[in-house]
């Protein structure tokens, strides 16, 4: 049982499941390659702060993806609310530089799954263990 799929109180539980995660919209490994990490430096240009996953747009300012806009996906808003990180923290970062480490989409589109995000003030937001 991997740590990712490990049900802490009973691996057997997972074995009996019907393929439906509690609130998960999709199995992340279906869309994203966890072995392919990309770090993006750019301006946060858009926020969609809704369930089942938040989406951010990042206008990349440096590196090989400079000038491109990436769509990156994060955990549900509840994930952040219970970590005392609010939508306002992200709204305050609009237009400012962020650093986002993502797992790249398997279709190699300019999209990824957020693993780690650094807000303009230096606050680091980890999406682990959900997205790791």
């Amino acid at each position, binding site marked *: *049982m*991997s*740590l*990712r*799929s*490990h*049900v*802490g*109180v*009973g*691996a*057997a*539980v*997972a*074995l*009996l*499941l*019907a*393929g*439906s*995660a*509690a*609130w*998960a*919209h*999709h*199995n*992340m*490994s*279906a*869309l994203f*390659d*966890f*072995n392919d*990490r990309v770090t993006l430096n750019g301006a946060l240009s858009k926020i969609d*702060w*809704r*369930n*089942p996953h938040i989406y951010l747009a990042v206008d990349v300012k440096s590196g090989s993806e400079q000038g491109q806009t990436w769509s990156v996906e994060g955990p*549900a*808003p*509840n*994930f952040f*609310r*219970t970590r005392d990180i609010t*939508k306002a923290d992200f709204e305050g970062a609009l237009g400012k530089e962020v650093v986002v*480490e993502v*797992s790249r989409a*398997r279709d190699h589109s300019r999209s990824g799954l957020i*693993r*780690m995000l650094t807000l303009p003030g230096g606050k680091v937001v*980890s999406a*682990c*263990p*959900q997205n*790791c």
Partner: protein
Amino acid sequence: MNRTSLTTAVLCSALLLVPSLSKAQLPRDPAERARVVAQIMEANARQLTLFDRQGRQVSTVGTRDLYNQPVFSPDGTRMAVVKPDLEKETNDLWVIDNASGKSIQLTVSKTRENAGSPAWSPDGKQIAYVALRDGYFGLHRKASNAQGDEELLYKGSAPMTLTDWSQDGKYLTYFSTDLSGGRLYALPLAGTGERKPIEVFSSKSQNQGPRLSPDSRIMTYTSNVSGRFEVYAIPFDPAAAPGAAPAAGPWQLSDQGGTGMVFWRKDGKELYFLAADRAVMTVEVTGGATPQFAKPKLLFRPPADIAPGLGPGNASVTRDGERFVIAVPRPQLRQLTVYDRSGKVVSKVGEPGFYNQPNMSPDGTRAVLMRNDPRTGNVDIWTMDLASGKGTAITNDTDPQNAPIWSPDGKQVAYVSTHESISSIYRKAADGTGEAEQLFSYTPGAGMVLTDWSSDNKFMTFYTGVIVLVPIGNNQKASERKEIDWLREEYLAGQGRFSPDNRYIAFLSNEDDVDRGEVYVRPFDPNKPDAPLAGPAVRVSKDGAQGMITWRQDGKELYYMTRNWEVMAVDIETTPTFKAGTPRMLFSLPGPLPGNALQWKNVSPDGQRFLFAMPTNASTQR
């Protein structure tokens, strides 16, 4: 959904949902937090129990706790186990002395990090494991007496599961799976510098649990290549070219399903595995370079009432094959029980079984439910007559099914079935006849919890944190049907339930308090299902809810379950506008109840009868 609902309806679920406690987020209110922790313990704690080869219980080790993945030390005197820390949201490794039950903590993970998948070194002095550290998964090892620091052996990015440390001490074997398939690896431990794993075998199937024979010439593993998990073996050649096909095999060792727990005896002449029906099996091994595997023999059957709660992650074997440990869960049997409005038991339906999610038919005479067959391990959908207890299979296959609901006229049932990572909604005649009709197919890898079927036959609802409508009142093919996000907001929402006149949808959400779910109602227009929602939702519950939202057939009363397992009723007026009365408790049940209250629709049309799958200790024939 709020943490309470998530915990009681989801974490305590035995059959329906899959969140990890390592990812659990507890409520912040101390009293609420303590209550939720107590419920998690009650529902999920396991007793480490030792059995001999005949299946006789030899002893128990320590006290009940949230143990998982027990693995014996090579001399059989200790066990490494995984135990979550609910407060820190971590999983860590502990080493327990089998005689005294005393334990020491081996790993100390930071908040929201994890360690698991223990494997002992051949001399018992070290334990290797997988740990999530600073956003990376890695293979680590540490002294089994917990002294010293952990040593990183290999750093990876994707999740991995360690299954063994070869008996010659040369390799760690592990696997990694995702929807693209499963890969088996061996990590050479000799030498210095960066270690490079050997990819031993990969395919589009879910290949798991690699273990090397004591001479490291054979690798056993499980795979679902045939449609269900079986045990296989291949030659292990560390010098083979990457991606090369095995020189021989794979040889199939099991013949009636093999879920895992494949351990070799230290002399290499016997191996063990857990069959699909959770029986402990043994296979005799003869020969050298070309091994001969005898037909599997039954060693023993674990207690019947725990079978569905037993998996390869809950059991292991000593190296001499004389002792087996099972992390025994609370009894998994349930008695379908009908209550009246005062909480008095009206009837018990049939014999106890491995049932979950019983939902009552529109006429109140039958149930549709999930049934786990202990002989096969399959979960299928059944209907059951509440008077006679006679059951009818709706599905009978290896694909997992969940979330059954009734059609408005009671002639059909619908459910979710997942095949090769794609979940679909099907409907079929409630008497089990005819073919199932696929109504809707969702994004690959995405799950659904089906919650309702509108009385005008135009829509179904499911939830994913969002309440989603599936239009079914047309002749479209499943692949052509497009879902509608009816309620997709910053807060979580689930269990959308149509009012009998289809003018409203009741649902659970944590809009007002992130730590608490409440029942709300919003207007619904079947002619404009994708229209923006107008105005605020009307809150119906007062002090938290966790599901079981059900309208009485006349639309004048609504039911739900509180976080304290109280069945509540609320008077409802829908004309000229929606109005809810003060919730009143009808009766309470001893929780935590198994299953997911966010899918229950278990009230008779007149609101006089309530159906639950109640945990029972009664034994059953296998």
